[in-house]
């Protein structure tokens, strides 16, 4: 049984580690400014934890085999432990865990403690069972008021988020079912939800934020590559959660401007 255990534990260790190292399944290609840092921190954590994982599992498998009970086994070493060893590994673990954590906190601070820059593109994201809507404030830079009473999901877009079209600031608001953003510019998101909690998750941007009813949550990110990026709802929101997905289209500034202008024109 000792050998069987060793083989099984080592096998599990090698197979598990292989797929991480081979990156058979891995984070999708990063396409935002924070992706590089997050991926770097990921790799660092992965290497450190990977070493501990492999070392601990291999040691476990080896020890149970090496010290298995058999007639010719060496006598047991009577010992209640070794305080010096314990102090050493406690200190090392503490430094490792807390150090890692401090290193990772810079990007968190950059992204969340500071407000979006003044030139950022404003987009309001609204989640509802089971769709996403994206609103642009238009030339006036102001979102018009919305109200739950005016919401009519079946009518789509403006009506779905309950835009008060009578209000002057709402006249130029554009509401879309697909999110368009220009490449290389910061996006200043406002996240809202009209019924339950949803979560706006774009794996390629390494971006995720819950949209919570009753709150308007501000968050920002900067896409760096033109392309179509899928987003998926990441918070259980009801029976249609699995199909509450959407598309973020990152386009050139020019394409973005003409897209937005065309939507504005449709409204007139």
């Amino acid at each position, binding site marked *: 049984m000792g050998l069987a255990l060793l083989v099984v534990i080592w096998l599990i260790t090698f197979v598990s580690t292989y797929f991480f190292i081979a990156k058979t399944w891995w984070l999708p290609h990063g396409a935002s400014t924070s992706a590089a840092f*997050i991926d770097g921190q990921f790799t660092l954590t992965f290497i450190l934890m990977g070493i501990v994982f492999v070392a601990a599992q291999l040691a476990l498998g080896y020890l149970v085999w090496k010290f*298995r009970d058999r007639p010719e086994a060496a006598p047991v070493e009577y010992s*209640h432990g070794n305080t010096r060893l314990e102090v050493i590994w406690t200190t090392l673990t503490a430094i490792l865990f807390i150090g890692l954590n401090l290193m990772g906190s810079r990007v968190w601070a950059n992204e969340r403690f500071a407000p979006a820059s003044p030139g950022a593109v404003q987009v309001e994201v609204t989640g509802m069972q089971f769709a996403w809507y994206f609103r642009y404030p238009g030339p006036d830079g102001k979102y018009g008021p919305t109200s739950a009473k005016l919401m009519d999901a079946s009518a789509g877009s403006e009506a779905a988020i309950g835009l008060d079209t009578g209000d002057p600031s709402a006249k130029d608001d554009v509401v879309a079912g697909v999110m368009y953003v220009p490449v290389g510019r910061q996006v200043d998101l406002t996240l809202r939800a009209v019924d339950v909690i949803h979560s706006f998750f774009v794996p390629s941007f390494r971006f995720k934020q819950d949209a919570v009813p009753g709150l308007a949550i501000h968050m920002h990110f900067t896409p760096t590559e033109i392309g179509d990026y899928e987003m998926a709802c990441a918070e259980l929101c009801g*029976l249609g959660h699995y199909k509450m997905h959407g598309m973020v289209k990152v386009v050139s500034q020019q394409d973005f401007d003409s897209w937005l202008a065309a939507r504005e024109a449709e409204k007139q």
Partner: protein
Amino acid sequence: MATTAPVHVHAAPQGFIRRYVFSLDHKVIGIQYYFLALAAVFVGMFLSLLMRIHLVWPTAQIPLFGEIKPETYLTLLTMHGTIMVFFVLTTAPQSGFGNYFLPIQIGAPDMAFPVLNMLSFWTTFVAFVVMIAAFFVAGGAPLHGWTGYAPLSAVPNSGPGEALGADLWIVSIAIFCIASLMGALNFITTVLDLRAKGMTMMRMPLTVWAWFITAILGLLAFGVLLSAGILLLMDRNLGTSFFVPGGLNFTGQLTVTPGGLSPSTTNFTHHGGSPLLWQHLFWFFGHPEVYIAILPGMGVASQLLSTFSRKPIFGYKAMVYAIMAIGILGFVVWGHHMFMSGMSPYSAFAFSIMTMCIGVPSAIKTFNWLGTLWHGRIRLQTPMLFAIGFVSLFVSGGLSGPFLAQPVLDIPLHDTYFVVGHFHLIMGVAAIFGIFAGTYYWFPKMFGRMMNERLGQIHFLITLLGTYAIFMPMHYLGLAGQTRRYSQFTEVAYQTKLVPLQTFMTYAALITIAAQFLFLINLFWSMRKGAKASDNPWESTTLEWSTATPPPHDNFGGQTPVVSHGPYEYSVPGAPRDFIMQTDPATTATH
């Protein structure tokens, strides 16, 4: 405090009902808890089987069920999680084994409050019945997940199952909380007051330490969940607004239908509640709860690694301090479940540092387990196999923690399969391995017979390989962005690519689930046909092994044991045998 407990002359009660149903004997109650958990684990496992089938064959026709709809999937998910966390992981290791063995291991004739003990079991039983009833009411069981985030859980028109089914779910959990509070009080009092002469705190087996600290965690955590549950019930049925803000629109409805228990028939309009408040209350309970599930397993692993290595546990004191540190730190890390929730990003900072700190005592325990094996003489019997499996799983599940604990890395990982992999390995399967280890180890004492070794070994190997095959790939899926709680992966293009791996996991689950019947067969077959067990078949040192098998009604046959040694005196140089029982006279100078 360690005075000799007065020897109650406990006459064993007569009559089937008093002996086996409404018994006051902690041993019977322990077995009742164990079998309740056993029933629950098979229900929970069956639900997971249906889930795994639906995930990869969403249109499959299941005998008697037909096709599983998306909302049915979420119902299975919710009930699977809830039943497993509350009625299995909280029930078997703590209330089951704890009830049976804590009094014996400290040399007490029973729990401090036997009537309260009986009440807490039957209250738990009622909670389980109410939980199962949720399946059968109009609308069915709720779909809001075991975490029950508001407003989904607070608003009956937010989905199917959120009417009466959700109310029953909350009521069941509230009842469960009351039962757990009673149990916790009993455990704490028993440890503090009923220890035999010589059983100082620092001579208690690590299992007792684990049950003791777990009881303290339960006392502090379940009270909060109980309050939160009552508030949620009030939001749903009385129209209060603790968790539901105003201005919502549920697919066209501006008002909220009252819950299934409400005296009101008119709809409610909510104002000013906070969905985040529920998350704070829930996770203030929820994080300690994960340790409630695992600490007893850690205790069992420590006990078994020492016993079967024939070596004292490495660093007994460090182990005790680590359990305490985990207990204390466990109450200040709940925010790590909420990094993406809209909570202040500054507090995320604090929560993540505290979370990394809690990884340290967890790591200490692992090192000490390995240190215990070092230069031992390891007897690889089935209980030990599961204890070794526990260590392996604890390492694997624990090491994904430091990824999730860093807020920046949690951005891509939160609410993906990575988290599902993390907590299944460390909480789900590791704790289950603790239960298996405890079962194979204590079965002889409980039922007077040995379990079958060969069946046990096969069960172990399939279960270890199987659980890794199911839960390790979840980490890969999570990295690739596969979101959790999706009933199928047909809609999001990048996720459909991951279905082959999901299919592999479903096959692994089928095999692993099938292997659990080996355990069931072994359990029931050995109860009647197993080889007769001696009083101390594993040559262990703790008090339960110095009394008869099975123990008499008052545990020690009218005698009060006197303790002269620490719990893990194996291979003491100069001793006549390779173990010194805690009750052996104090001839050799040991700890």
